[in-house]
């Protein structure tokens, strides 16, 4: 459906996107995830045709689009601030692409009705845009982007401005509509949860480059590098030194503690590295006692306790790990006792949960 080959966009000396390549199949939902300035929106705008790549090619349906202007591309887009036409009704907005793309006049009203129904706005077609709520405006924007049955749907962080509850509802709504229509979709967001919830595949970008392209679960379980490990999920990074490394395993020294973890590529002995532990994979136990299922146990002191209802967030200080401060999630607060600040505890983890990354220099 869509293919990008080495797409690069430079503004002067600054590369907003560098050597971006990926392919998207029919009906696939891809999310480009990254912080602001990572180049994700630049990539989206080049696909839409609002910007031309400095280098590389973009293919839509097998054909390179090169300098094809945006209005000649069969792409629907939902914009960050929606960009609905303020002087038209909801139905007018949805009919606009149909009129512009030469759909037969007598077919347009029925089609508008159908798409109003699809986004659950049946009967609200006559409303002006400013008479609709934020969520309803979102739905109009989706319907406008889809009514002409584009080959590709682009979502430019349209959910970023909504409050959390509505955003989560709309995420599922987007996913439902997308699956119902089977349209290939590229979504851009900085919200990791949204990326994990909605996508078949996630591309993590930073500094204009793709850091990892994988299924959401893979990106979470097997982050390709330190950036991905830090961007998706809450991760503790512990500075360490590599002692030896082979076969996807590394033995490292974190402060006075020597332990093993997995690593993507072999690391040279003595190299500075970082050991990464997800906050929910650090286990809490009684001081001086073993912890079930843990391969490593070290003593620690609780320094912070935040009760959030469905989980408790702890910060602990572990002198044996070079004085590191670790964040820990306890996802079962009803069955575990809540620790107190200052309490001596033991923390532990499974060998395979520790990831080792070369330290960024």
């Amino acid at each position, binding site marked *: 459906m869509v293919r990008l080959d080495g797409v690069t966009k430079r503004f002067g000396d600054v590369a907003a996107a560098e050597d971006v390549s990926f392919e998207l199949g029919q009906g696939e939902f891809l999310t480009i995830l990254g912080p602001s300035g990572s180049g994700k929106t630049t990539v989206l705008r080049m696909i839409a045709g609002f910007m031309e790549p400095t280098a590389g090619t973009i293919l839509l349906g097998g054909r390179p689009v090169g300098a094809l202007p945006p*209005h000649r591309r069969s792409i629907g887009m939902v914009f960050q601030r929606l*960009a609905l036409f303020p002087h038209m009704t909801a139905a007018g907005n949805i009919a606009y692409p149909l009129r512009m793309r030469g759909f037969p006049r007598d077919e347009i009203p029925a089609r508008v009705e159908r798409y109003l129904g699809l986004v659950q706005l049946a009967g609200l077609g006559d409303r002006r845009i400013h008479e609709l709520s934020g969520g309803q405006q979102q739905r109009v924007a989706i319907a406008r982007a889809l009514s002409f049955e584009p080959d590709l749907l682009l979502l430019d962080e349209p959910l970023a401005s909504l409050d959390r509850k509505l955003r989560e509802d709309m995420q599922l709504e987007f996913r439902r509509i997308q699956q119902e229509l089977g349209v290939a979709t590229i979504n851009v967001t900085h919200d990791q949860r949204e990326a994990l919830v909605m996508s078949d595949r996630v591309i993590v970008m930073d500094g204009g480059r793709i850091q990892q392209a994988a299924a959401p679960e893979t990106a979470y379980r097997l982050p390709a590098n330190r950036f991905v490990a830090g961007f998706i999920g809450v991760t503790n990074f512990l500075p360490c030194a590599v002692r030896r490394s082979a076969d996807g395993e590394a033995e490292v020294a974190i402060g006075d503690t020597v332990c093993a973890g997995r690593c993507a590529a072999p690391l040279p002995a003595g190299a500075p590295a970082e050991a990464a532990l997800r906050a929910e994979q650090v286990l809490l136990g009684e001081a001086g006692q073993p912890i079930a299922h843990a391969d490593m146990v070290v003593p620690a002191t609780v320094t912070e306790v935040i009760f959030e209802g469905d989980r408790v967030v702890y910060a602990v200080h572990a002198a044996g790990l070079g004085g590191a401060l670790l964040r820990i999630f306890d996802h079962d607060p009803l069955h575990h006792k809540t620790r107190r600040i200052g309490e001596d505890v033991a923390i532990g983890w499974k060998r395979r949960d520790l990831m080792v990354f070369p330290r960024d220099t």
Partner: protein
Amino acid sequence: MKAPQAKTVVIWTVVWFNLIFLALPTVIVIVASFTAGNIIQFPPEGLSLRWYASLVETDSYSDAFLRSLYVAAICTLISLPIGTLAAIALARYRLRMATAIQLYLLLPFTIPLIVSGLGMMLVFGQIRILGQLWPVGIATCVINIPFMIWAVASAVNSLDVDLENAAANCGAPPLLTFLTVTMPAVMPGVITGGLLMFILAFNEFIVSLMLVDARIVTLPVLVYNSIRSVITPDLAAIAVVYIVVALATIWVLDRLVGLEIFLKSK
């Protein structure tokens, strides 16, 4: 407990003071215009419509009124395309020397009207169009165009930056995008600016005074001439005509744009 009450008293005193002093001259003129006597005075000496009748009967007044309307119409017609396009271009597209152009277009604000009027008198005299009415329309357009640009620009700036991209994404080529999306979306600003230009040109005095001669006096100039000879209550009646025109403009604005949108866009 006392502080908020004292605050309320102060605020309402200021509000009423302002309301009264803004409205007082207008109210006095309106009341005075209905006098039955021969001089403007407040309170009026009896009530009648005789000075309104005299306005209608005096040809010089109705002629001057129509001339002012004509000047205002010309000014509005010229400023609509110029101001709208300039404002959209300045607010929307990255132009070379945009700041310089903006400053240049705001220049009329910084120059005293008497100087602009003198300059235009010389230029119009040089190209031999002095003594006609339509150049007065152009002159009022030139000195007031910043208002038009400002009204449209504030409408453009409140639009989503991706509005035109959205239209292109819907399949509209650039010209259609402009006609079907950009123009209608900034229309409230265009109407606001247009009405503002109309009323400003209709009221314009100093530049008018320097560009008209005895055969083509506009209403403000005629009022000025009358004041210098005899002050009669028909001047109060003319003042009321001005008030009515202003109210009519505001009414049209409210019908077309909605006053709350107009006030919000400032």
